[in-house]
């Protein structure tokens, strides 16, 4: 329970960084931290007590029986989520570089040409 809460605190740090920082790169960092927190939370859901070496891989000389093993489904999902995070970050940085080329600053308050 404490571990889940600490995960949500990390998610809160990411949200806080995203809301209060005006620099685009800091927003990218805030977003990545939020992504890390959500991915880690999903993996914490699948952990089994003293399952540190109970990763879901079978070997010919099998020592761990399959009902001791950790939950493999969240791991398969989070592999996808990590690569989604990479895709979003790459697109974010590409747009940030082009914005820097156009506005010559990373500060979003000075980029405010459009009124929301």
């Amino acid at each position: 329970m404490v571990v889940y809460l600490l995960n949500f605190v990390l998610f809160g740090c990411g949200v806080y960084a995203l809301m209060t920082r005006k620099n685009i790169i800091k927003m990218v960092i805030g977003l990545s931290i939020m992504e890390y927190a959500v991915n880690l939370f999903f993996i914490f859901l699948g952990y089994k007590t003293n399952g540190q070496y109970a990763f879901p891989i079978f070997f010919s000389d099998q020592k761990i029986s399959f009902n001791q093993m950790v939950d493999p489904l969240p791991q398969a999902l989070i592999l996808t989520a990590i690569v989604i995070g990479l895709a979003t970050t790459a697109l974010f940085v590409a747009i940030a570089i082009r914005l820097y080329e156009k506005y010559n600053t990373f500060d979003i308050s000075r980029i405010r040409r459009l009124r929301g």
Partner: protein
Amino acid sequence: MNNNLLPLLVVIPLAGAFLTAFLGTTLKENIHKKLLDLLVNLSSLGGLTIAVLIATTVFNSRTILTYNLGGWMWPVGILWRVDALSIIFLVTVNFLGFMATLFSVGYMEKYTDKWKYYSLFLLLIAGMNTVSITGDLFNLYVFLELTTIASYALVAFGCEADELEASFKYLVLGSISSLFILLAIALLYGYTSSLNMVDISRFLLNNRMPQSLLTLITTLFFVGFSLKAAIVPFHAWLPDAHPSAPAPISAMLSGIIIKVLGIYPIVRIFFNIITPPAQFFKIFLYLGALSMLVGVLLAVYQWDFKRLLAYHSISQIGYVVVGIALATPLGVAAGLFHLINHAVFKSLLFFNSGAVEYATGTRDLHQMGGLQNSLPATSGSCLVASMSIAGIPPFNGFWSKLLIILAAIQSGHYLIALIAVIVSIITLASFLKVQKYAFRGEKKFGRYHLPVGMNLTMIILALACLGFSLIMIPKFYTIILDAAQQVVVAGPAVFSNL
């Protein structure tokens, strides 16, 4: 046989996208231009024919099409589940997709690297096709993410300063909403340890979710998906993203992307999977009414044609949300009917704005004038679309707005019915302004011949604006709208027989 058509719905756009990218990089510009125009139009037409085929089978046999991917039974593997509700979104996605590819053959000549536009556009269609037919929550999240990432790059396709900034704002809000959705899926997995919609709804039927976890999951899902659907408190990105995108992309964005990625998951999750706390539908209803009002009030002062249309999208989405949030059979049917109509006339309006921008180069209503005789097809179809968005009788907009107002009165929300009427009048006024400044007025531009694809699209959509009011005939009403609203109003029971 028709079960095997389902994978083709996804494979044709995906294979088309990869082939377009392959041909775009290997062949020279002048060689691959004609080839790609043909390839992309063929694949979106193929998608449309398959969607119509599947729609006819589901409507005639009134059954649910299911498909187990990889041959694995559904809690272990991924399940595709096509019922009357997903048919509405599936056919609209492919119909608008074909219209947009037809339109962009001529329109996208103004942009460089056309093959990148085509490749990303086909990925949009593939993503939305899967979102509307999948029965698995994480599969829905992955292809929702695919559609949004493809639309980020398409919004910034012109690489101008304001387009990059609009795409940047859309990217930030889109990523936040995707993270909220993933967190909600993680919590749902924590409680039910399953990702399949049918499995989760059956699990939740016999062990009810405690109230505190239910509110947490409901808020996360609702915030996530209403950010995608641009419902009022979360609409900040839409008025910037839609005007700066190329016309076919803003037509797709307003016409169908905010519906398939926003409204459809909300309806599927909150009606069929988890039964949200009681006051959720009340909040949903009031936010819908707020969207109606705020969208149209902001739209009245706009002089930029596309930005005006973007604000009207927010207010029309408010109509759809009000219809569905009433949760009565008539209300849900009216909401879905307005969703289809809005997809048709709003995309037609964006195509008109694209045609006007293509011919005159400006989006500002002040600089336009007398386009009636310089762009006959555009002004004719824009007249049809303006009348149907404002709700003038013979056109489709009138019938769906009428049904929504009747449903609101029937379930006792007189204030909301009144707001719907007032907003409809302000919409009429706003579009009269557009007609007066853009199409009537003194002639400023000579006769301009648009590419044939653009004119053809606008004429087809104008006819569709008239044709879709035929859905009011009882025979069509029962097979299309009644079947869909039964799926929604039946709630979790709809998964019981599968």
